[in-house]
């Protein structure tokens, strides 16, 4: 059952920011994550600020330079089914289509998907864990089958739950943020916060700040983007391991690449070792093997999630072979 909160549905961004700029205020976009968080009591919210009456935050349109501007309130379903997205950034469309289940995609928004709270069962459960203000990360010494192998610094081992963030990072997307101090635009790659920087926050948004739009740059020539997700169950589930690829191809040669992993780290995890292994190389068996080995470089798995090492290797191998097969 949900605790008590006040509710307001402003019509302007200015008012929205004003309402959000107090401790205990939370933005309600689709509500699919917020309602769950309130039910589980994982944060103190005394005011819910609905974004549903705001104009201009909804929809997908092509920008003058050939990129896309996606309103933060656009639903995941709309992103996954948009012909524009599918044509220009299939990786994002695939990421969106892998989110949760159909009803949650119909309700959840792209902005909300980027700002989700983690799904660690200790964090969501009745455990006063580090991220909630407690003293330790229960998952580290406890049950961490689904947890991170990168970037946790043994502080907090959540994985970032988003399936749209990895493709957005790979595609070089940016988010527009509005807040008490005005507007700013930052790369999605810089949106999320690692535990070492701040274990109590998931994004760099400050109090009162809200994401309004996602900007996607014009896709480069011969861009090949994709998202592939491995999960324990085929619906509702978050990634055990996932990979978003954005490859700029020249024949069978990868000119530039961006490779971002999900299910890997507390933030969408850019895998520079894989990028280094494939960029400026022909995508042949040797390259793919190197890339597969590279994907686990620097990993710090825990006793219960060692399986993720070979899973990521296998995933990279399979995905890159798929790309190389398409080239033939």
């Amino acid at each position, binding site marked *: *059952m949900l605790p008590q909160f006040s509710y307001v549905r402003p019509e302007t961004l200015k008012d929205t920011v004003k309402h959000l700029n107090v401790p205990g205020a939370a933005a309600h976009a689709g509500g699919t994550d917020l309602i769950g968080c309130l039910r589980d009591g994982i944060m103190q919210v005394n005011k819910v600020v609905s974004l549903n009456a705001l104009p201009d935050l909804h929809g997908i349109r092509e920008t003058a330079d050939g990129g896309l501007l996606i309103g933060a309130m656009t639903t995941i379903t709309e992103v996954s089914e948009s012909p524009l997205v599918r044509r220009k950034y299939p990786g994002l469309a695939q990421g969106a289509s892998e989110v949760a289940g159909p009803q949650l995609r119909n309700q959840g928004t792209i902005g909300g998907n980027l700002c989700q709270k983690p799904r660690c069962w200790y964090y969501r*459960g009745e*455990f006063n864990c580090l991220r909630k203000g407690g003293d330790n990360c229960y998952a580290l010494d*406890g049950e961490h089958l689904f947890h991170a192998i990168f970037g946790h610094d043994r502080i907090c081992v959540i994985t970032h739950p988003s399936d749209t963030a990895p493709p957005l990072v790979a595609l070089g997307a940016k988010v527009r943020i509005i807040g008490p101090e005005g507007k700013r635009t930052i790369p999605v790659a810089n949106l999320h916060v690692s535990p070492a920087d701040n274990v109590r926050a998931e994004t760099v948004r400050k109090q009162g700040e809200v994401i309004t739009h996602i900007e996607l740059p014009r896709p480069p020539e011969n861009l090949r983007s994709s998202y592939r997700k491995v999960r324990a169950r*085929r619906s*509702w589930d978050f990634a055990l391991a996932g990979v978003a690829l954005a490859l700029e191809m020249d024949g069978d040669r990868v000119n530039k690449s961006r490779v971002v992993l999900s299910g890997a780290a507390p933030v969408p995890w850019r895998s520079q070792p894989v990028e280094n292994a494939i960029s400026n190389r022909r995508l042949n068996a040797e390259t793919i093997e190197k890339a597969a080995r590279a994907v686990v470089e620097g990993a710090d798995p825990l006793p219960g999630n*060692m399986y993720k090492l070979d899973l990521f290797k296998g995933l990279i191998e399979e995905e890159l072979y798929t790309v190389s097969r398409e080239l033939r």
Partner: protein
Amino acid sequence: MAEDGTIYYTNGLPVPDTPAPGEEPEFWKETDVVGKRTPRVDAYERVSGTAVYPSDIKLPNMIYGAILRCPHAHAKVKKVDAGRAEKMPGVRALITGDSPEAGGLKWKYRGYSGPLFDAHCRFEGEVVAAVAADTPYQAWDAVHAIDVEYDVLPHVVDHNLALTGKAPEVHDQGNLAGTDEYERGDVAGGFAEADVVLEQNYETGCQLHTPMELHGCVADWEGDRLTIWESSQGVYAVQSVLSGILGMPLSKVRVIGHYMGGGFGSKLWPGKYTVLAALMAKQAARPVKMILTREETFLCVGNRPPNTMRLKAGVKKDGTLTAFDFECIGPSGAYPGGGTEIVDWLVRDLYQCDNVRCLSRDVYIHAGTARPFRAPGHPQGSWALEQMMDDLAEKIGMDPIELRLKNIPSISQGRGIPYTRTGLKDCIERGAERFGWKDAVKRAREQNRSGSHIKRGVGMGACLWIVGGGGPPSTVVIKLFRDGSVNLNMGASDIGTGTKTIMAMVAAEELGVKPDVIQIEHADTGTTQYATPSGGSKTVPTEAPTVRNAAIDVKRQIIQMAAEDLGAPAVDLDYEGSEIVSMKDKSKRIQVTDVSGLKKRGVVIGVGYRGPNPKNKSVNPFAAQFCELEVNTKTGEMKILRFLGAHDSGRVMNRLTYDNQVFGGIVMGIGFGMTEFRQLDANQTGKLCNRNWHDYKLPTALDVPVDMESLPIEIDDPEANNTGAKGLGEPVTIPTASAIANALYMATGIRFTKAPVHPMEMRRRLSAGKEG
């Protein structure tokens, strides 16, 4: 009322002969209604949303209950301060262990008796206090405002540690809840004569029932009379438990459970929540609706206990099984719950083997108490036995199907008496043929040689279910109205298996009326007849013969009445469609609805009782299931391509709901084998990690194959009961996981001895190799 006395009859339908008083009815040779694909009599209510489940009940002045539960695996309650909560808006009732209402009340479950509020909390989820308020939101606000001081104590939640001597004791008498030993023949001698002896350890995960409808009830007092609407598998069982705890006569406790949203064994009895609802309803003098939250149902309403098993088996080169030695340990939970109950039954009974030894040790741990779960013990035992059978077959170079067929027992060895009928051989043989076993094996082997990282496997498992023949007691009343329409009155619950529909079909078959004019009253201790809970796959074999007996009682009375009208002796008369006809003089006939006795009385009441089961014979359903799947050896992902279930459950009563049961059992077995496991935070808090349907994963529409086939193996079993029906709901989920495991072995060459095999486990084992 209809003018035409025949409109409710299926015209031209012959009806079975009416046995003379004291005689048993003949076994139906052919049936006209029974067995056909018949949509459910209550389908309209269920698809329109008009079916009223207990959680849909709303009474005037009703308030809502919520329960404060112990958040620790093991703790003692030192102090409960409800002062703040009592004063909160909307709060109308509040009860704790200190409340006078709770004083002296004992909770009873499976032989255990202890205080309703036990300050010594032995599992996370034990009740500490309860509140009822105008809205459930307010009730929960108040629950959160109750301050409790706990003394948190050390816990043990791993059943493998419970008996090591290092674990804290759950009860004063120690952690051993019970031991069960069984032996026949000469086990050592059996192993000595074997050509191959294999030994393997197996583990199965803890599966939670999580039916779609939450556990809960509505409690309402009228003076000293209590009415409970409970989401339940058996209203009489709820009545009995409540009257015992509350010290009330059975007649003053009315339990109603017309519709219920699934139970799978977890709703055979009421919960403490039912008692708390009743107590708070009394306190507030208002009806209380107490529906648990989904999270609570993961903690305190039962589970299929996890089991650790060891099986040693001997076989001769010709496939003769020489010995089984089986050992198993499993947790009841905090209180007696059957942690290892009948896990060993398949080892004892399924395959011909003269020398068998079984040892089961049931232990206490600081976690929720087990409850029967769809075929208790059997999927676990099957997980060990069926994988072992495949391993033995491989070692002696025999096809796994051949090995099983070689060892079909002629009697129930576990009981030492014959089966009435056994379809085990037919299930395996005909199932394999329909599945295309040989071709499928060939296809899989070819693919696995091709070098693709997608490997393919086929596997099978066979089973029986320990009971499934039903039996007394049961009473059913059938009312024949003067227009020929019928009312069927029985106490049994329809837990989703289609019981009501089958009973209507039985009555229709016997009386010649159309099934859709049969009105059914059921599952109400105030107005319907005694029945045991719907569980154990016994509802149809228990109730169907009872319904038949009630219908025959109606027919006998009508014949008696018609004898007066026709001036012919009753012994000469019998039903012919909608008429009573003299067998000696066919011109003497009368419409049932014209029988003056019926017209005068308005209604004729027939009473049926469930007769005894055959003496010294065992009634069991049998099955074999077959599975084909693929494994992605890079990622560990698995895809089940198809499943076939060949089931001998005696007569198929309704083909439509029969197939649905088979498919549903397979889906649940897929969950047991591949997706579901309770995760306790064993090394730190002992608390439950996965208490929702995201973290505890049921199979979804995308996790089950589109290609599923049900192949009924219908064998006449007149000895079982007068309808020939045997249980179905449980065998359908027994061999599913083992069939999957055997298919995974073919695909990967890895023996998956630990269930469930989810992609994480698959990937781990692919990396660790065959030994891992």
